[in-house]
């Protein structure tokens, strides 16, 4: 008899006295094996994937709502809810037919009117959706299973837009839910995907539960990322929110959870030593670290000052600060696009390669007219990635002889302050740190951070006519060769004008118990095909 049994016995006696014999329901071993306990990257604080575009919401929504198309691991859109599509020769009229037998979680069939409402809501919020909406003549249901999208001019990336995994995805919801204002949150979660959301068990900040949808009709093809047959092998997926990484690591070792989405680098060696735990790269598309300089005010309104910083920065310093000594977790990135993806390029990236030249950088900075004014550098301390990068940047700027006004704050404050266009001394800023999911940087469609259309661009408001010209070229490209050529020119133009400073490419691990099988690499945790033994 071990100590725990004794404690249980003692407490059992107490239980009888204090609760009149309340006892825990017995959980059969089989039931436990059919429940997958997962620790996600963040709290599921809301559950509207169009209204809230955080990745954790997208990841949960991908279980609950299906899409018309799904991007596979080759970055190709594959049919998902759609059975067939036709496009007219002039490329302006798309006609889609839905697969038969598709059902929502309330048992109602998925109809064209639901798709039309869902696409209307999505296209009001998504960057690609907005582009299609700008070209739209009409989006109508032809019959229960057929709908038509008529455009004023061709949009060659239509299927990619409908299947992309970047947030917000074009999830299909019942019409009554999809008719909600896209800037207001939905309150009913009736899905079309392989798992149902158990709203009654949802404790935001603590737990979210998803149950297998028995009437889901998976495709017959093998699953690949968001495409193919989404065969769910467990009855329940429980998301357990754990804000403390050390607790998550201990819980995984103790068998209290089955899968931890993103263990921090410091704890990975401990997990690797445990014979019951598997550790591997989770998302092969990783992340791109960055800091953005404000184009509106000195010193970074001058391209020479921006290039001086780029010339001096060592991506290795940044990456080691983020991932530590594990060389398999990072790569130098002399460009803006995700490594190992079809459009990756290093064209124009020479300034980021080779030995760093501090003297030349100082000279260039002096030529920009910098004369010691404070550089307001926003650094969120509650995000380990931005904190690590901020410390490296502060050191870099000091080495360059810049006067750093280091604003240590939290992510929420950075989020609102970076939107201020006022001068740095009056509530504005000169630079802030962030990072971009590699999935968002595979091409210009979801890549807001690469846009350089001044006032309309992302924070920092970069202006680069060359960059914008090549973004358009990519959208108009008719084949992969044309796309690659456009991206090469785009990369060069963006680096020449320093749209932002890439600090390197980094990956992270995922970890799971060895009694769990079927975990695959992907831009989001994929629950179909994952099973668990007792």
């Amino acid at each position, binding site marked *: 008899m071990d100590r*725990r049994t004794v404690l249980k016995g003692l407490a059992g006696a107490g239980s009888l006295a204090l*609760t009149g014999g309340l006892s*825990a329901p017995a959980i059969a071993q089989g039931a436990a094996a059919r429940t997958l306990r997962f620790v996600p990257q963040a709290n599921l*604080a809301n559950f509207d994937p169009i209204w809230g*575009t955080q990745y954790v919401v997208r990841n949960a929504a991908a279980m609950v709502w299906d899409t018309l198309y799904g991007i596979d691991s080759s970055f190709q859109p594959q049919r998902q809810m759609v059975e067939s599509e036709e496009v007219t020769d002039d490329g302006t009229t798309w006609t889609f037919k839905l697969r038969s037998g598709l059902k929502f979680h309330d048992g109602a069939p998925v109809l064209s009117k639901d798709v039309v409402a869902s696409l209307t809501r999505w296209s009001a919020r998504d960057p690609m959706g907005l582009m299609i909406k700008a070209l739209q003549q009409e989006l109508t249901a032809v019959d229960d299973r057929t709908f038509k999208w008529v455009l004023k001019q061709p949009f060659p990336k239509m299927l990619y837009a409908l299947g992309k995994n970047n947030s917000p995805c074009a999830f299909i919801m019942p019409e009554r839910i999809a008719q909600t204002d896209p800037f207001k949150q939905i309150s009913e979660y009736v899905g079309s995907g392989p798992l149902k959301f158990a709203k009654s068990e949802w404790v935001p*900040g603590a737990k979210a539960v998803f149950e297998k949808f028995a009437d889901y009709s998976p495709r017959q093809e093998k699953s690949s990322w968001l495409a193919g047959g989404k065969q769910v092998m467990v009855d329940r997926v429980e998301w*357990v929110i754990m804000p403390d990484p050390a607790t998550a690591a201990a819980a995984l070792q103790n068998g209290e959870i089955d899968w931890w989405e993103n263990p921090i680098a410091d704890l990975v060696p401990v997990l690797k030593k445990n014979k019951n735990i598997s550790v591997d790269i989770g998302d092969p598309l990783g992340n791109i670290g960055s800091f953005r300089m404000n184009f509106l005010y000195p010193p970074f309104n001058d391209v020479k000052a921006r290039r001086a910083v780029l010339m001096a920065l060592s991506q290795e310093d940044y990456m080691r600060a983020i991932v530590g000594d594990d060389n398999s977790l990072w790569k130098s990135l002399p460009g803006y696009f995700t490594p190992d993806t079809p459009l990756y390029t290093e064209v124009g990236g020479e300034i980021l390669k080779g030995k760093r030249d501090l003297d030349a950088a100082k000279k260039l900075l002096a030529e920009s007219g910098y004369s010691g004014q404070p550089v307001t550098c926003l650094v969120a301390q509650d995000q380990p990635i931005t904190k690590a990068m901020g410390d490296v940047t502060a050191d870099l700027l000091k080495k360059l002889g810049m006067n750093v006004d280091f604003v240590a704050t939290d992510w929420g404050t950075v989020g*609102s302050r970076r*939107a201020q266009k006022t001068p740095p001394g009056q509530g504005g800023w000169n630079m802030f740190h962030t990072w971009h999911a590699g999935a968002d940087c595979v091409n210009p469609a979801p890549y807001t951070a690469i846009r350089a259309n001044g006032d309309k661009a992302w924070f920092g408001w970069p202006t680069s006519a060359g960059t914008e010209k090549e973004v358009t070229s990519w959208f108009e490209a008719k084949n992969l060769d044309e796309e690659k050529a456009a991206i090469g020119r785009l990369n060069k133009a963006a680096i020449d004008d320093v749209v932002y400073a890439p600090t390197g490419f980094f990956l992270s691990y995922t970890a799971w118990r060895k009694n769990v099988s079927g975990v695959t690499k992907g831009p989001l945790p994929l629950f179909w095909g994952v099973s668990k033994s007792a």
Partner: protein
Amino acid sequence: MLSYILRRIVATLPVMAIVALFVFSLLYIAPGDPAVVIAGDQASPEDVERIRQSLGLDRPFLVQFGSWVWRILHGDLGTSIFTNLPVSAMIGQRLGPTLSLMIVTLLLTIVVAVPLGVVAAWKAGSLIDRVIMGFAVFGFSLPVFVVGYMLAYIFALELEWLPVQGYTPLTQGFWPWLENLILPAIALGCVYIALVARITRAAMLEVLQQDYIRTAKAKGLGQGGILFIHALKNAAVPIVTVIGIGIALLIGGAVVTESVFAIPGLGRLTIDAILRRDYPVIQGIVLLFSFVYVLVNLMIDVTYTLVDPRIRY
């Protein structure tokens, strides 16, 4: 007594009103914008502005404050900006774990700290006294999260006696409920035990010098009777005061403890709400905590009459 309690309850109203105004003003001027968090990194400034409008965050301060107070007066704490759930429901979901943690910690503290303080006073100046006070200083100095990690490592990972994390409601059985609370309660209780033990010792030392204690000894009363019946009762007022004040310590410590042991309580809800700038949730929780604190103070005052018959209201 009843009229005193009623007067005190009425007196809490202006206190709560000041707290409400203070909390609302503080959040209004604090940096950060929930609309930015909701919109995500890819959102345009126009999207963020539309979300601000839909949440009513673009309205003037007085309009926002007025509508919030109006709702509070109708018993409505509002709706979370992020989850779209009523704040009262969210607090209700989290109340059980936090209350359980605080009750177990409180019981543990009283059961451990008071006898330790009494023994230390009884054996004042001896090795036992020094050892107990040494432990008290140690417990007072160690941060909650350090104690938490140490306990989890030893008792959960190494010995496998208790779970690392989580919470099970009492309705699912006493042991499942208790086993999740033992380590967090010890971690959270360390500081509290140290504080109460030291105060108990000091109060007891003073009482043990009194003439009536000498008289009790002269009458031949046993040591236990003298310490726990005569001395402890007379030393109880400062001890009860510290236990009451310590509830504020517990609320603060619960934030860290709940994070370390992944307990879905009010502490974690508070932190999540602050980081996301979920104003209605922050306001609701702060109001609740303020009310609890005022209530605890009232209970302490009432308890004085039970332990010291000389005190009358």
